[in-house]
């Protein structure tokens, strides 16, 4: 019971922790502060509670497809918002800026909503899991200890990634962060394709390959790569198309953001006084 709750909570928190690490690294770089993070986390938790307590009726809506449609919607929204955030921060002369036409503020607001959506998605599962043990006095303590450990490991991996990203050489920082965001957007869209396949809104096709022999999804590295770059051992064509679309969307946003700022030189930010 203990080990199971450690693993379950770790799986659920890892993805959010890695996303927070990437966004926090960018915000630190752009000096946007971190108030957005607390807004996102608290709003997300409250809404996750509301969704979790109504999960029964959500699941049964849309001919039993409600839960998947909600998840797919949350994931697609995250993908689009990540692309919008990338648009804001690409094409800047300096990857460090003071407030520039309110862009840094808008970027922080976007990050807040992205975190909120991610917490809603992962949080409701954690809440439902824990709620199952509330009535059982013999298990609740073990489950809470296990969950805290799982949460702690997830948060630690996030903190490690955050400092690793900040420690990157100056020239590597921006491309690494953008690539991670692009892969994350791809992951989100690919996961929403899985959700839609599960309720038969997208036709199930045979997996394109099976790399579970090489790297099982349920292994430690498999789980980490699943959370970081959306690794799947048995992806379908729909998933690959969605993954590529998510990455393409972020690339398009980066290109368009760069072009826009090239043609609006008056908008170039002022450098931060050191």
């Amino acid at each position, binding site marked *: *019971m203990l080990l199971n709750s450690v693993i379950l909570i770790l799986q659920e928190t890892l993805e959010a922790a890695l996303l927070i690490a990437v966004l926090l690294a960018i915000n630190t770089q752009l000096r946007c502060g971190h108030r957005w993070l607390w807004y996102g986390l608290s709003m997300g938790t409250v809404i996750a509670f509301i969704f979790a307590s109504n*999960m029964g009726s959500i699941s*049964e809506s849309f001919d039993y497809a409600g839960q998947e449609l909600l998840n797919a919607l949350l994931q697609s929204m995250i993908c689009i918002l990540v692309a919008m955030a990338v648009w804001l921060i690409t094409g800047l002369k300096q990857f460090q800026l003071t407030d520039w036409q309110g862009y840094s503020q808008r970027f922080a607001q976007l990050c807040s909503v992205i975190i909120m959506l991610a917490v809603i998605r992962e949080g409701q599962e954690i809440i*439902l899991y824990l709620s199952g043990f509330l009535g059982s006095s013999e298990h609740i303590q073990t489950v809470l200890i296990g969950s805290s450990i799982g949460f702690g490991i997830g948060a630690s991996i996030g903190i490690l990634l955050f400092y690793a990203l900040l420690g990157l050489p100056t020239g590597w920082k921006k491309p690494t962060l953008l690539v991670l965001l692009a892969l994350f957007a791809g992951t989100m869209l690919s996961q929403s394709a899985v959700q839609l396949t*599960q309720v038969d*809104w997208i036709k199930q096709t045979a997996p394109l390959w099976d790399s*579970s022999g090489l790297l099982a*999804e349920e292994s430690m590295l498999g789980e980490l790569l699943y959370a970081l770059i959306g690794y799947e051992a048995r992806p379908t064509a729909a998933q690959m198309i969605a993954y590529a679309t998510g990455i393409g969307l972020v690339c398009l946003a980066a290109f368009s953001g760069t072009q826009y700022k090239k043609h609006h030189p008056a908008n170039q930010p002022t450098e931060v006084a050191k």
Partner: protein
Amino acid sequence: MNYLSIRWPTANNHKAIAALLLGGLLVCATASATPVVEITIKDHLFYPAELILPAATKIKLLIHNTDPTPEEFESYELNREKVIVGNSSAVIFIGPLKSGTYPFFGEFYPKTAQGKILVK
């Protein structure tokens, strides 16, 4: 009017094209009857714990969770994951599958909630 000239998409029919693409992507459930297979969760166990299903067939799994606690149906092999709250039912579509063994488990109570689908 030159009927042979190619008319490039205007702002208006961009929307129509997007809708078509989306429609094409979301291939909706066919009206033809999909076989329904029922699974019951009771005391954190699956009944039946072993199912034999035909290959190359789409199946609608109807899972009844008769426990008061939530459970999560999960299978790496089937690439499926769904939370089923206590005293409720859920639908998961699987297949068409190749023959083989596809284990599944309840992620919230994996010690007891174990099962497998044999596709023949």
